[in-house]
């Protein structure tokens, strides 16, 4: 496994732990924690999550052991996970994505997922996933969308797409396909569930 992939895999597990588990713990002990400077709290929590991600499971560690279930999360998912850390946002007032940007990402994920996944499962004779290996079509579309996002001050999306393009070019992830840096099945499923719950469908 390449070093960049190893970092990616562990980073996604750390992010998931921080996103899903730590906030619950945070809420449970919030009264206690408020007495402390949040930076002290984070200085404890982050090393713990790193240790958990590296916890040995057989000849692997937890992050790599989970890989068949999580897959390699896309950069988009990683951005959304970090944006979802509401509790830390209260501490540091950071905001990676505006509500409009979030909405754009989730809706785009549904459209892209509905376009790509059925073709890879053989529902059609075309294979849109193959466009992500080589060819100018997909990178060009990505570049145009990044340019439009930049012009309309959706900087997070613009930087995300720029990072996707360069991560793919430098082959930083496990996949050699551009789609896998933009989209993953968990993001697609979450986007659908979010859409359905938003509109009470």
């Amino acid at each position, binding site marked *: *496994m390449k070093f960049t992939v*190893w970092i990616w*895999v562990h980073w996604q597990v750390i992010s998931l732990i921080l996103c899903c588990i730590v906030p619950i713990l945070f809420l449970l002990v919030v009264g206690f924690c408020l007495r402390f400077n949040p930076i002290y709290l984070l200085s404890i929590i982050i090393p713990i999550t790193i240790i958990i991600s590296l916890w040995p499971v*057989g*000849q*692997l560690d937890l992050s*790599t*052991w989970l*890989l*068949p*279930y999580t*897959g390699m999360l896309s950069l988009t998912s990683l951005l959304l996970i970090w944006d979802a850390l509401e509790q830390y946002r209260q501490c540091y007032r950071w905001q990676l994505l505006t509500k409009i940007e979030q909405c754009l990402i989730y809706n785009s994920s549904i459209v892209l997922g509905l376009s*790509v*996944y059925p073709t*890879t*499962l*053989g*529902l*059609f*004779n*075309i*294979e849109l*996933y*193959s466009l992500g*290996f*080589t*060819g*100018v079509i997909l*990178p*060009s579309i990505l*570049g145009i969308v*990044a*340019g439009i996002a*930049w012009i309309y001050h959706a900087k997070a999306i*613009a*930087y995300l797409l*720029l990072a996707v*393009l*360069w991560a*793919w*070019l430098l*082959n930083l992830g*496990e*996949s*050699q*396909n551009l*789609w*896998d840096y933009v*989209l*993953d*099945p968990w993001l697609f499923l979450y986007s659908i569930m979010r859409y359905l719950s938003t509109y009470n469908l």
Partner: protein
Amino acid sequence: MSNHLNKTSRLEHLSFTLALALGLIGAWWRTLTIPSPMFDSSEYQINIPSVNMVPTPNPSPVFIRELLPKNAITPTVHSPTLVRLPNGNVLAAWFGGSREGAKDVAIYASERNSNGWSSMKVLANRKTVEQALQRPIRKLGNPVLTIDKASRVWLFFVVVSLGGWSTSAVAYQISKDNGQHFSLPRLLVTSPVLNISTLVRARPLNYQDGSIAVPMYHELLGKFGLNVRIASGGRILSIAHIGNLRTAIQPTIVAINSQQAIALLRRTGIAPPQVLWSRTNDGGQSWSLPQASNLSNPDSSCAAIRRFGGGILLAYNPTKQGRNILSLARFDHKQRWQHLHDLERGQDQDEFSYPFLISGPAYDYTMVYTWKRRRIAYIHFNEAWLQTLP
């Protein structure tokens, strides 16, 4: 202060534009430097072998059949493959263990030289693959050997991390010393859905630019063949569906010329049990809808190769049910498949299956197949022997 902000903004704007432009130029450059896929002449003019050997036709009929070495730790063996090495030896590989899909299954290999078969050695096992790929591996299977234009031996095989065969991925190793030592396994990401449900079985073909066409197939929900073009460095260049029948797997591809090829596929699931075939006219980038041939096949893997002097030679199970007969057929100039000869004919419960066929420099053919799931059988014959068949 305002000037400073404007300056920062301009710098950010310039940096973003520059990074995006460079990225797009990089993406375009990556694409423009890839030649269009054209099958190597050694694939369709098979008297020009891909390895440097002078073709010398043997006028005397030759037919040799033998069983590969047996080992007590692999009571079950299946899915053999082989490759002719530049030194003239043949390297065969297969998977074996206590039973198919068991945790002790490993990929084994044996080399045949003038003295016979070497003792078998392990090319990959579950533990070493798990360590190299850094993910849980439940089982291994379907090894496929091939040799590229740089005389490097590639070993592709199927790995399963969760579920069954239909949730597999494909890994590969490369040897630069005629299969004596292989690199650590690397994973091919061929599917966006957790990289599951891609398998490999049949012989890959070389393209003129050094890339290889690896026939693969997908089994989850839809079942269909894939032609995966892989650059010499291991980068996937394209994936094309071989038709969209959704019931056709395990394609074996035969090049007709630099652009045209025929894929023969195993029909799975619904009847009628026949060998299917599909055609490409653009080097494997697009394929016709698979059609049924006039050959019976009981949902079993087949192997095909370009025949000396034209036509195609096919090894397959010619039954409607069961794999107890293994035969040869030819695709003649009348565009019809014609049964040639039964290589094996056993009891109903016997199995002679999963043939893997290659050609040699002396107008000869070499084949390995599963023999009753207990042994791997090896057959060597030549064109002169085929000419003697009625």
